[in-house]
């Protein structure tokens, strides 16, 4: 393609990038690094070390790690099964798996609220069967459940994608050379699927770390995560400077994840769904 044409074709995208990425990001930087009167300060960013903010950040990290680990443990065997069944992307199972993602994220989370509530659907059924009721609503456990439910597809798809690309001959060769099932898994399949696993981990960890909707709805606003702190500064505190400063801190985590992806998933295998 000649250079001029390429420039013309890139124009809409560049315009989009400037309008919806670069300008908003710059605004966050400007707000985050100034105080209400507009003079430069680092206090918004450093306030992440304030007791309540740091505690919220730690709690967010813990909940995100737990959810990511659960997602990984659930997703890997599922992806293996999908591969071994020789299902292609158009298959029904993959379709059913992606189907809920077509529904609004907020609605799906609200649905969990009515499932888990004290007089909710799950407890009504349990009571009917004379079983003890389930009391996890408004606790960190409900938040983890919400995170796992919402973000599981983001773990399954990249892993499935990478597994699918492993040539069966590679696995057969391992077998021929005397590897048993376990050895094939740990020494051939898992190492080859690292790019997918890393993409999956970051694609679950980052949104889980910054969520505020799940903790508001399923945590009854009793559990303060860093996302809630930022949301509160914007919608209730009218302190955009502090909110932006804390958002800048969260960006560091996103940059770290991007660095991880760049290191382990050089060809972007896991990212292409």
């Amino acid at each position, binding site marked *: 393609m000649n250079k001029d044409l390429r420039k013309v074709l890139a124009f809409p995208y560049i315009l989009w990038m400037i309008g919806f990425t670069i300008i908003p990001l710059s605004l966050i930087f400007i707000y985050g690094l100034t105080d*209400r009167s507009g003079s430069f300060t680092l206090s918004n960013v450093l306030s992440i070390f304030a*007791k*309540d*903010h740091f*505690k*919220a950040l730690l709690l967010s990290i813990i909940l995100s790690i737990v959810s990511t680990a659960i997602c990984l443990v659930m997703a890997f065997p599922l992806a293996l099964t999908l591969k071994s069944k020789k299902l292609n992307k158009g298959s029904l199972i993959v379709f059913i798996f992606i189907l809920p993602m077509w529904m609004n994220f*907020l*609605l799906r989370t*609200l649905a969990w609220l009515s499932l888990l*509530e*004290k*007089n909710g659907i799950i407890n009504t059924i349990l009571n009917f069967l004379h079983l003890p009721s389930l009391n996890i609503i*408004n606790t960190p456990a409900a938040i983890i459940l919400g995170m796992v439910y919402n973000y599981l597809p983001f773990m399954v798809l990249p892993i499935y994608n990478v597994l699918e690309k492993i040539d069966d001959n590679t696995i057969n060769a391992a077998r021929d050379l005397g590897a048993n099932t376990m050895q094939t898994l740990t020494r051939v399949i898992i190492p080859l699927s690292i790019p997918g696993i890393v993409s999956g981990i970051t694609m679950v960890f980052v949104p889980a770390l910054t969520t505020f909707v799940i903790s*508001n709805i399923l945590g*009854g*606003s*009793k559990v*303060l995560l860093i996302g*809630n*702190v930022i949301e*509160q*500064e*914007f*919608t*209730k*505190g*009218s*302190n*955009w400077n502090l909110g932006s400063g804390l958002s800048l801190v969260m960006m560091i985590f996103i940059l770290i994840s991007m660095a991880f992806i760049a290191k382990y998933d050089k060809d972007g295998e896991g990212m292409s769904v």
Partner: protein
Amino acid sequence: MKKKFVSIMTLMSMLSVAVLSGCGKSNAGAKAGSAGELYVYNWGEYIDESVVEEFEKETGIKVVYDMFETNEEMYPVLEAGGVVYDVVCPSDYMIEKMIQNDMLAEIDFNNVPNIKNIDTKYMDMAKSFDPENKYAVPYTWGTVGILYNTSMVDDEITSWSDLWNPKYQGNILMQDSVRDAFMVGEKLLGYSMNTTDKAELEKVKEKLIEQKPLVQAYVIDQVRDKMIGGEAAIGVIYSGEMLYVQNEVANSGEDFELKYVIPKEGTNLWIDAWVIPKNAKNKENAEKWIDFLNRPEIAKKNFEYITYPTPNKAAFELLDKELQENTALFPTDDMLKNSEVFKYLGDEGDSLYNDLWKEVKGK
């Protein structure tokens, strides 16, 4: 002071307003838009949509209707000025902040003859944030109180201290907004709900932390669904929501009732009022809008839809006797003697409250 948490309903009503105003355009007697435009910024679910339609039909003014969820969310939007609104409906303390920051235009009351319909009592109440009654026309008012489920609560609820009763552990719903949550603690401890005294606020914070293990959830609009569904025994709610939840329960055929009480220690007496921003481009249309909403029959229709108490005396007189005598909705002066209206506390005061609230939430 209507708070919207999940914006689905807002979105839906926004769409329907768009559709309605679209219809208004085609079959209006006076062609909508022929008399200019009016940019309205109001709380979600805070108007009977047919009122907007009627206004458009009658005046030929095209209404562009946007909604917000909290005062704090509305303020930066107005301040940034990306969209210039002609008429906005904030709450008391936010109006005070806007007056202090010179953001409001004086209303020309010659264009708002229906101001006479508003009970002077509420104009006096509005003086707490608009001392000369120059900027604001009250739209709704009310209290914050305790709603309880008669089948789950056998004591007589009279005081905020009932929200600290261990008997109701896991069955208490608190408001998830800084000022309202603190108001509960402040009134209980006998402080002013506008205090910025650090020592007093620390004590309130301790009190709220002490309450946290008893609280099922901190909610805004969800308090309605949770109380209707019998999820909780006792919750803090705006008086304007009371009729709605009571009707829902009555219609659901459940065998409990929800009762609303204004605690004896006093409460937040709030007013939401229409104001005109200084930079409004259609000030006269905004005045026409305010005047239209204060017609007795329009105000009555609107009240019946949103169920937030109306300060419009002429509309009040049109209501059924049963509603007029509902003291939970229209309390007597005696019931309000310990109550206050929120004042704007300044950025410093706001930050202090916010930080303490984060400590409560983070425990």
